[in-house]
C-alpha cells in the first residue's frame, strides 16, 4: 500500500499528520488525521478524590478547559446524587455561553475564515488572521480581540480564574453573582449579540455573496450524509449546557434520544489496523465501514451536527439565521422541520449561528431575576457511587464518567472528548477530498494539500485534548510511499 503523509497541518497544532493510503492502482483507499494519544489519564486520576476532577480535567486541554470543567462538575452532580438549583444551573450556563463566545469567535476569524476571506487558493502564508485583517480592516481585528477580552473577563469573574476555572462544585457553584456584576454581564452580552450579527453579516458579504464559494460549500467533495448528534432541550432545540443527547438520521428523523448516563448503550468504538485512533459509531446501527448513509453507524458531532440534530434554536435571532442557512443550502421543510445540511463546509456558518445563540442566551440569562440568587452552595450528604456528565463542547459532545468508592475516591474514569466523536467523519472527509484530487499518476500540488486541510479544518479538531505542542512555523510536508513503505516523493514548504 502506498502512503501519502501531510505533516504537520498548517493552522492546526499538535503532532498531527494526515496519512493517506493508496492501493496498488494508486487510488486512495483510506485516510486519517493522526491525533496524538496521551496515555495514563485514568491511572493519574484513580485514587484521587472525585471532587478534584473539575480542577484536574480542566488541565487536559488549554483550549477548552471550561468544557472539561463543566462536564466534570455535572458528573459530580450525578456522582453525589445532588440536584443543582435552578439558579446554579443558570449561573453555570451563563459562564458556559461566555466561553462559547470566545471559542467560536477565534475559530471563525483565525482558523476557518481565512480560507473564505482570502480565498482557498491564496498563498498559505497569507491565509491567516493577519491576512483577514489586511483584507477586511483593522477594526475587525479590534472587535475580535474586544469580544474575547470582555468574555474572558466574565469567565474569570464567574469561574474564579482566568484560564483554568475553579468554581464548579457538586450540586453547586462556588460564587454567586452580585447585582453590579449582573449589570456588567448584561452589557457584555448585548455587545456579544451585536458582534455575532456583525460576523454573520460579514459571512453573508464575503462568502454567500460569492457564488464560487457557495458552489464550493455545496460541492460533493465536501459532502457526507451521516447521522448527527447534539444536546437538545425539552423542545428539541440546541442547548450547550444540558439536555438529552439526540441523534438524527441522514434524512433528519430522530433516531434516538437518550440521557448522557446511557451513552454506553448507544456508542461503541471501532479499531482499525491502520490507525491507532478509535472510531466511535452508533452501536445499534452497527459499523459498516467509513461510508455514508442510514445503514452506517458513523455519526458526526459538530456545530452543524448540533443544528441538524435539533429542530431549531431557542433564541429568536439565531432561529432566523438557522432558517436562512437551511433555506439557502437547499434543505426541505418537512412537517415544520428542515432536512439536514450535509455540506461539511457549512459548519463554519453553523458555528456563527451558534455564536449568535450563545450571545442571545447569555443576554437572557443575565436578565433572569434568579441569576443573582446568593444560595449557590449545597451540603453534599449522599454516598457517591457513579456519575456521568456531559456538555456540548465546541468540538462535539463531551462526556465524563467517574466511578468511586464510598469515600468518593476515584476507581474508574472514562472520558469521550469532543473531537473523538468525529474521528470517522474526519477520516471520510479527508479521504473524499483526496479522492477527488489524487488519481493514478496525479502529482501532489499545494491546492491538493489545502483542499484536504479545508476538509478537516471545519471540524476544528483538537489534536490531543492535552498537549499544545506547536512550533511557530510549521513545515507542510507531503510524503508519498510505495507499497513497501519507501518514500517515492516528498514535498515540503514552510508556512505560518
Amino acid at each position: 500500500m502506498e502512503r501519502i503523509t501531510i505533516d504537520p497541518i498548517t493552522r492546526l497544532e499538535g503532532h498531527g499528520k494526515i496519512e493517506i493510503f493508496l492501493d496498488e492502482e494508486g487510488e486512495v483507499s483510506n485516510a486519517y488525521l493522526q491525533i496524538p494519544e496521551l496515555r495514563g489519564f485514568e491511572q493519574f486520576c484513580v485514587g484521587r478524590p472525585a471532587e478534584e476532577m473539575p480542577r484536574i480535567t480542566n488541565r487536559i486541554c488549554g483550549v477548552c478547559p471550561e468544557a472539561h470543567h463543566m462536564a466534570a462538575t455535572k458528573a459530580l452532580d450525578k456522582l453525589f446524587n445532588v440536584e443543582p438549583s435552578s439558579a446554579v444551573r443558570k449561573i453555570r450556563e451563563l459562564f458556559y455561553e461566555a466561553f462559547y463566545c470566545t471559542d467560536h469567535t477565534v475559530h471563525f476569524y483565525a482558523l476557518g475564515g481565512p480560507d473564505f476571506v482570502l480565498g482557498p487558493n491564496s498563498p498559505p502564508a497569507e491565509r491567516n488572521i493577519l491576512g483577514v485583517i489586511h483584507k477586511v480592516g483593522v477594526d475587525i481585528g479590534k472587535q475580535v480581540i474586544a469580544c474575547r477580552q470582555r468574555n474572558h473577563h466574565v469567565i474569570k469573574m464567574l469561574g474564579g480564574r482566568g484560564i483554568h476555572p475553579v468554581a464548579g462544585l457538586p450540586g453547586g457553584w462556588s460564587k454567586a453573582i452580585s447585582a453590579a456584576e449582573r449589570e456588567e454581564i448584561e452589557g457584555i452580552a448585548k455587545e456579544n449579540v451585536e458582534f455575532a450579527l456583525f460576523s454573520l453579516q460579514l459571512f453573508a458579504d464575503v462568502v454567500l455573496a460569492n457564488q464560487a464559494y457557495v458552489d464550493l460549500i455545496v460541492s460533493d467533495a465536501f459532502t457526507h450524509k451521516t447521522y448527527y448528534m447534539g444536546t437538545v432541550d425539552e423542545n428539541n432545540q440546541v442547548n450547550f449546557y444540558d439536555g438529552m443527547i439526540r441523534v438524527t438520521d441522514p434524512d433528519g428523523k430522530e433516531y434516538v434520544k437518550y440521557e448522557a448516563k446511557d451513552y454506553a448503550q448507544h456508542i461503541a468504538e471501532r479499531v482499525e489496523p491502520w490507525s491507532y485512533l478509535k472510531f466511535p459509531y452508533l452501536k445499534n446501527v452497527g459499523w459498516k465501514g467509513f461510508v455514508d448513509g442510514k445503514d452506517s453507524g458513523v455519526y458526526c458531532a459538530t456545530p452543524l451536527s448540533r443544528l441538524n440534530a435539533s429542530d431549531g434554536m431557542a433564541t429568536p435571532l439565531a432561529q432566523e439565521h438557522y432558517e436562512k442557512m437551511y433555506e439557502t443550502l437547499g434543505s426541505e421543510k418537512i412537517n415544520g422541520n428542515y432536512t439536514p445540511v450535509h455540506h461539511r463546509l457549512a459548519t463554519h456558518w453553523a458555528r456563527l449561528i451558534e455564536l449568535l445563540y450563545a450571545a442571545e442566551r447569555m443576554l437572557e440569562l443575565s436578565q433572569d431575576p434568579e441569576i443573582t440568587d446568593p444560595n449557590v452552595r449545597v451540603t453534599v450528604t449522599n454516598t457517591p457511587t457513579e456519575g456521568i456528565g456531559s456538555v456540548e463542547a465546541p468540538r462535539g459532545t463531551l462526556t465524563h464518567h467517574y466511578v468511586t468508592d464510598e469515600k468518593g475516591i476515584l476507581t474508574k474514569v472514562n472520558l469521550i472528548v469532543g473531537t473523538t466523536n468525529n474521528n470517522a467523519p474526519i477520516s471520510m472527509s479527508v479521504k473524499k477530498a483526496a479522492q477527488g484530487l489524487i488519481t493514478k499518476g496525479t502529482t501532489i500540488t499545494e491546492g491538493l494539500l489545502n483542499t484536504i486541510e479545508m476538509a478537516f479544518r471545519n471540524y476544528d479538531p483538537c489534536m490531543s485534548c492535552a498537549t499544545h505542542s506547536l512550533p511557530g512555523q510549521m513545515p507542510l510536508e507531503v510524503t508519498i510511499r510505495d507499497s513497501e513503505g519507501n518514500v517515492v516523493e516528498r514535498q515540503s514548504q514552510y508556512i505560518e
Partner: protein
Amino acid sequence: MKTLVVGLGNPILTDDGVGVKVAYEVEKVLADTPIDNANAGEIEVIEACAGGIRLMELVVGYDRLILVDAITSANGHQPGTIHKLSYEDLRDVSPTQHSACAHDTSFVTALEMGRMLGLKLPTEISIYGIEVENLIDFGDEPTPAVAAAIPHAAAAVLLELNGN
C-alpha cells in the same frame, strides 16, 4: 517597567509542565528575596497553558516578557538542556511546545496581529526552553533530568530579572 514571567505548559503531563514549575520556583524565590535593583521594576509571575492569540492577550500591557516553556529541538539535545532563545528565534525556527495554538495561530503571528491593532505589547522578549523527554504520559512529576534542570532554569530567569 513592568515584567511578566509566564510558565507555559500542562503541569499534569509529566515534562510538559516544566515551564510552570520553573515559574513557581521563580515566584518563590522572589517572595523570599525581592530583587534589589531599582531598574527591575514591577514583576509578575503567572502560569498558562495557552498559545497563540490567548497568550498574546495575556501579555498585553507589559514592557518585558519572559516565557518559560518545554522544547523538543531537532538536534538531539539531552533532556534538561536549557536553551535561551530570542523573539527572532521564535520567528525563525520552531522552538517551544506552547507558543502556538491549534485553534488560532502562532504566538509570533498573534503578536504581529496585536501590534497591528495598536495593543501595548512587550518590546523585550526572551524565552527559556527546557529540553524535554516525555510529553504523552499524564503525571505530576517531570522525568529526573528535566526535574534537575528546574532550579538552573529558575536561576537563569532570576539572573535576567536582576538585570544581568
